[in-house]
C-alpha cells in the first residue's frame, strides 16, 4: 500500500473509532433512560408520580384476571415482591396470559391501582408448535417463566 | 398441511388480514425493485443509441 492510501485508511479508521466511541459513551449514559418502566416494587416505594402517564412492567399474577362487561378487565401485576392492580378496557394482545410479562401504559390512580389505556405483551425468543409445548408440560417440564 | 380447508388457509385463524397484508406489501416492494433496473436499462440503451446517432450525424 502506498503512503497516501495508508494515510487515508488511517483517517477513515480514526473517524470511525471516534464516532463509535462517542456513540458508545452516549448510549452508556442513556442506558437507564431508554424505555424504562416502573416495577410494582418501585411503585410501592412511591417512586412513580401519581396522576401522570407512566409505564408499569411485571408478570400477570395467575388467577387474578377478572373480566367484566364491555372488554373491561382487571388483573394484578407482580415482580415477585410487590403487587399492583391494573384496570383496562380494550382488546388484549394475543400473548396476554397468566404468568406472562406485560407492560401497561397509563395513569397511577392510587398507590396500588393503575388505569391503563394500553397493554403490551412481551414475547420471549421461543417459538414452539402447540403439540410440542403440551408434550413438554405433560412430561413434567415446568413452563418456562417469561421475563 | 397446517390448515384443513382453503378458507382456513386464507383466514389464518383470526390473523388473515395481518399475515396477507405483510406478504402483499413485501411482494409489491420486491416487484418494484425488480422492475426498476429493467426499465432503467431500457431507457439507458435507448439513450446511448440516440447519442450515437446524433454524433454520427454531426461528423
Amino acid at each position: 500500500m502506498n503512503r497516501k492510501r495508508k494515510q487515508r485508511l488511517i483517517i477513515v479508521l480514526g473517524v470511525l473509532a471516534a464516532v463509535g466511541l462517542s456513540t458508545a459513551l452516549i448510549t452508556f449514559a442513556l442506558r437507564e433512560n431508554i424505555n424504562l418502566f416502573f416495577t410494582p416494587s418501585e411503585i410501592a416505594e412511591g417512586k412513580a408520580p401519581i396522576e401522570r402517564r407512566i409505564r408499569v412492567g411485571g408478570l400477570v399474577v395467575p388467577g387474578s384476571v377478572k373480566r367484566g362487561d364491555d372488554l373491561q378487565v382487571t388483573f394484578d401485576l407482580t415482580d415477585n415482591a410487590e403487587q399492583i392492580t391494573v384496570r383496562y378496557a380494550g382488546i388484549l394482545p394475543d400473548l396476554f396470559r397468566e404468568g406472562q410479562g406485560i407492560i401497561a401504559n397509563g395513569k397511577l390512580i392510587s398507590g396500588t391501582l393503575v388505569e391503563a389505556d394500553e397493554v403490551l405483551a412481551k414475547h420471549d425468543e421461543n417459538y414452539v408448535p402447540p403439540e410440542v409445548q403440551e408434550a413438554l408440560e405433560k412430561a413434567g417440564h415446568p413452563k418456562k417463566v417469561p421475563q | 398441511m397446517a390448515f384443513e380447508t382453503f378458507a382456513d388457509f386464507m383466514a389464518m385463524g383470526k390473523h388473515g388480514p395481518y399475515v396477507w397484508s405483510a406478504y402483499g406489501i413485501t411482494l409489491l416492494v420486491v416487484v418494484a425493485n425488480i422492475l426498476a433496473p429493467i426499465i432503467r436499462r431500457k431507457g439507458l440503451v435507448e439513450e446511448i443509441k440516440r447519442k450515437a446517432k446524433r454524433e454520427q450525424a454531426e461528423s
Partner: protein
Amino acid sequence: MFEYLKRLYHKFGSPRYFYDLTGKMLPWLVALSVLLLIPGLIYGLGFAPPEKYQGNSYRVIYIHVPAASIAMAGYVMMAVAGVIVLVWRMKMAEMVAKSVAPIGASFAFICLVTGSIWGKPTWGTWWVWDARLTSMLILLFLYLGVMALNAAIENAQSAARATAVLSIVGAVNLPIIKYSVEWWNTLHQPASIRMTSSAIDPEMLYTLLTCIAGFYCLFGALVILSTRCEILSREQRSSWVKKLVGVS
C-alpha cells in the same frame, strides 16, 4: 495468495470485467432465489405448524427476519464499499455503494412494516419507541440520507465520496441494532436463531433458514441488476459499452 487476491481485486475493479462476470452469475442467482423462496414461503405460510401462543400471525417471521438481516448486511456492504472508495478510489466500489442504497432501504422498510403488522396482534401495538425498533428506523433514515446525498450531488465521484463518509459514520448504528435487545429493556424479544441451540422449533427453523437464503440470493440478484445499469450509465462513452448496445 496475496498476489492472487491483488489480481482478483484489480479484475473486479474493472467495470467491464464486473459486467461480464455478473452477467454470468445473474441467471444462477435468479434460479436459486426462486427455487428457495417459493417453496420456503409456501411451506412457511401453509405447512409449518402454527405457534402455540401467537397462532398464525407468527408466519410473518418468514419475511420479517430475512428482511432485517439483509437490511443490515446491505449496510455493511455499502460501508465497506465506502471505505474502498475513500482509500483506494475504486470506481467500481462507487457504483456498488450507490446501487445498494435503495435496495437496502427497501428491505429495511419491509422489515419495519412487517414488524409493525406483526406487533399489533401479538404485542398489542403497531409501534413502540424501544431501542430495537428505533435503531432499525434510524437505519432506514441512514439509507434514505445516502440516497438523497447521491441525488443531490451532480458529479458522480464527489457524490460517491460524500455518501461514503455518511455510510461509514452510520455504521456505528449496526452493533446498536444487533445488541439493543440485550443492552436495554426492550419490548422486542432477543434473537431466536443462535449458533448453539436455537430457541425455535426445528421445522420452523429450517423453513426460516430456507427463506433467509432465498432472500439473500434475491438481494444479490437485485444488487447485480442495478449495478449493471450504473455501469452502462457511467461507462456509456467507452467502446465496449457502445459495442454491447450495438451502435459502433
